[in-house]
């Protein structure tokens, strides 16, 4: 069975929680006691129907205010796949949650209210999905029951969205007309909307092709830790533990170690279950190499013929997540793959309007939830790939050195030209 991670996004009233509740309920993942608890709360509030949204709102403040505060993770499985849902709130101020929830997703599901059509929120969510290079986008046109299941309305919205998204560079967009409240096209195909002959949402989630979503071209192995057991039977053992971040790595391959630029060959790829002949993302393995080299945490193992970019002067797009705005001169800690370095922000180059993806080149600072382009100088060179080529070796976080709080999610775009 495969694993599919997807993130949902929608405005407060798009019925996102209802949709998730429906997916869980109709795929029989809701337990009776959980359903009873929700039914009780619904009845106490005087709702006409059982509010499935209550299944996903976990914290007291959320139930009291009827909103979703934070990213919540939900799980369900069908005989075909296991699903992890990152459920993100739709409020404007929660771009950071959307970025957080989508960062590990294979697919983003955007909800559109069939009555109101494409809104600023829809555009924002689709833009963020595009920015984070999520391979698959699903646009669910919801509340079709409230527009009389009208095919023309569905087509109108689909055309409006595809016109907007033409510039997003999304690999794949799928449109599905649904009614989360009544269950049409969520798990089972809608009988009312017989004019729609595509898959139901669940069918699509079960079938969408995810095998090629990892980078399988560029061998990359960031060293997580050096394993030296120092025991009698493993006296000379020296291995490098880590998770493959790109490409295939095979026993016998010639490899290059950064930053030392020494070359050697892969002697073994192993796990507690035994030796492997090759490994690919996202496998966690221990690698041993033929020569006795000085390799430590934070080093990157690649191949001599396929090397990442190496630079201290970096261009990146960041989502700023702190209250105080980001300006040039700001010093931060930066975590990239398995290493921490210090960095200073050289320049805020532009701010991106997340509704249109247009650049505002006049911007000189980024406020909370802003997305923009910056340049950074790091204390030591990073070994990286552009984010659009590799989501693992192309991403980083920025951390405030005083409060230790994570203040930005960053995507590397390249080296700053000298």
């Amino acid at each position, binding site marked *: 069975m495969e694993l599919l991670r997807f993130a949902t996004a929608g405005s407060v009233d798009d019925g996102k929680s209802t949709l998730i509740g429906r997916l869980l309920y109709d795929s029989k993942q809701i337990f009776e006691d959980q359903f009873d608890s929700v039914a009780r709360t619904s009845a106490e509030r005087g709702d006409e129907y059982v509010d499935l949204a209550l299944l996903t709102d976990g914290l007291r403040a959320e139930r009291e205010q009827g909103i979703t505060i934070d990213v919540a993770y939900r799980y369900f499985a069908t005989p075909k796949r296991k699903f992890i849902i990152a459920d993100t709130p739709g409020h404007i101020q929660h771009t950071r949650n959307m970025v957080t929830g989508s960062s590990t997703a294979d697919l983003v599901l955007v909800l559109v209210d069939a009555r109101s059509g494409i809104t600023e929120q829809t555009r924002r969510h689709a833009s963020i999905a595009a920015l984070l290079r999520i391979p698959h986008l699903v646009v669910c046109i919801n509340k079709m029951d409230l527009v009389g299941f009208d095919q023309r309305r569905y087509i109108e919205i689909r055309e409006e969205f595809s016109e907007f998204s033409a510039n997003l560079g999304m690999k794949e967009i799928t449109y599905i007309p649904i009614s989360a409240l009544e269950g049409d096209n969520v798990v089972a195909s809608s009988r009312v909307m017989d004019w729609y002959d595509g898959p139901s949402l669940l069918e699509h989630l079960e079938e969408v092709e995810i095998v090629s979503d990892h980078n399988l071209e560029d061998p990359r192995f960031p060293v997580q830790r050096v394993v030296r057991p120092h025991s009698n039977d493993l006296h000379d053992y020296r291995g490098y533990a880590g998770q493959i971040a790109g490409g295939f790595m095979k026993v016998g391959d010639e490899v290059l170690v950064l930053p030392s630029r020494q070359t050697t060959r892969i002697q073994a790829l192993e796990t507690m279950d035994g030796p492997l002949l090759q490994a690919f993302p996202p496998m966690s393995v221990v690698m041993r190499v033929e020569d006795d080299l000085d390799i430590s945490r934070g080093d990157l193992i690649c191949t001599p013929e396929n090397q990442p970019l190496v630079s201290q002067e970096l261009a990146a797009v960041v989502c700023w997540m702190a209250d105080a705005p980001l300006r040039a001169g700001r010093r931060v800690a930066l975590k990239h793959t398995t290493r921490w370095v210090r960095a200073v922000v050289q320049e805020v180059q532009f701010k991106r309007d997340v509704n249109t993806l247009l650049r505002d080149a006049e911007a000189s600072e980024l406020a909370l939830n802003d997305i923009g382009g910056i340049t950074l100088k790091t204390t030591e060179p990073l070994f990286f790939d552009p984010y659009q080529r590799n989501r693992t070796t192309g991403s980083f976080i920025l951390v405030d050195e005083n409060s230790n*709080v994570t203040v930005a999610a960053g995507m590397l775009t390249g080296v700053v030209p000298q």
Partner: protein
Amino acid sequence: MEALLTHLDALESESIQIIREVVAEFERPALLFSGGKDSAVLLHLAVKACWPQPIPFPVVHVDTGQNFEEVIAFRDARVRELGCRLVIASVQEAIDRGDITDDVSPGSSRNRLQTHSLLKVIEDGNFDAVFGGARRDEEKARAKERVFSFRDEFGQWNPRGQRPEIWNLFNGRHRKGEHFRIFPLSNWTELDIWQYIGQEGIELPSIYFAHRRRVVRRDNMLIGVGPFTQPRSDEETFEALVRYRTVGDMTCTAAVESEAIDVEMVINETVLARVSERGATRTDDRFSDAAMEDRKREGYF
């Protein structure tokens, strides 16, 4: 070749990456090990993550003094087998010292009292990262918790002030006195846990499988009769074929009727289960919708 992992292998790899980050970045990690199925899986993953080195940190058990003897025996056997250090935080000793007061009212449990002993053992051991086997599918408040979950110097969780967690770039930076709870099983479900136990052949305490036990029916749950759970005057004791879906303190863990004698039969039951794991078996989560959220804020597991 098909370059795609099965869901269990993908989950395993993710958990191993998390554990290795902690071992690499923290000074004094520890692993909470209750002897329950989730902590058995957690310990197995820790062994795999550190392999071929033995795990370089101690395991900690917060012992209410009211545990199932089968579970304590399993705990001790596993620790002996791995040769790791076991630190026991005893709730009974804290009560005897007068640090906390035992609640002796009918139907009470020492569950909530564990928070004190847990925080004390973390402080005494100077642990800066404490692995726990909690899963996000267990409970609504848990669904919103980070993998690297920050605790202030009072051990408290602040659900609204959590650090964003992006990609798998974990931020474990902290000041002295603060610590992190680390949840490598965040993305696992009860079914994943059982399937993985089957795949890996992980040993469990015998009470997870069907056995005959003397029980009483209380609040529509089956409570095993033992030294800490005596039948009340109006309760009738009878023998039933049961197993435990979760294993905690005897006073707050209920059994379910079951004929599942092996992992495969448990998996089949889990697929068909209509009541959640905590709802079926935990008397402590029935007080209110926010019972877990409140305990967690105070520093609970």
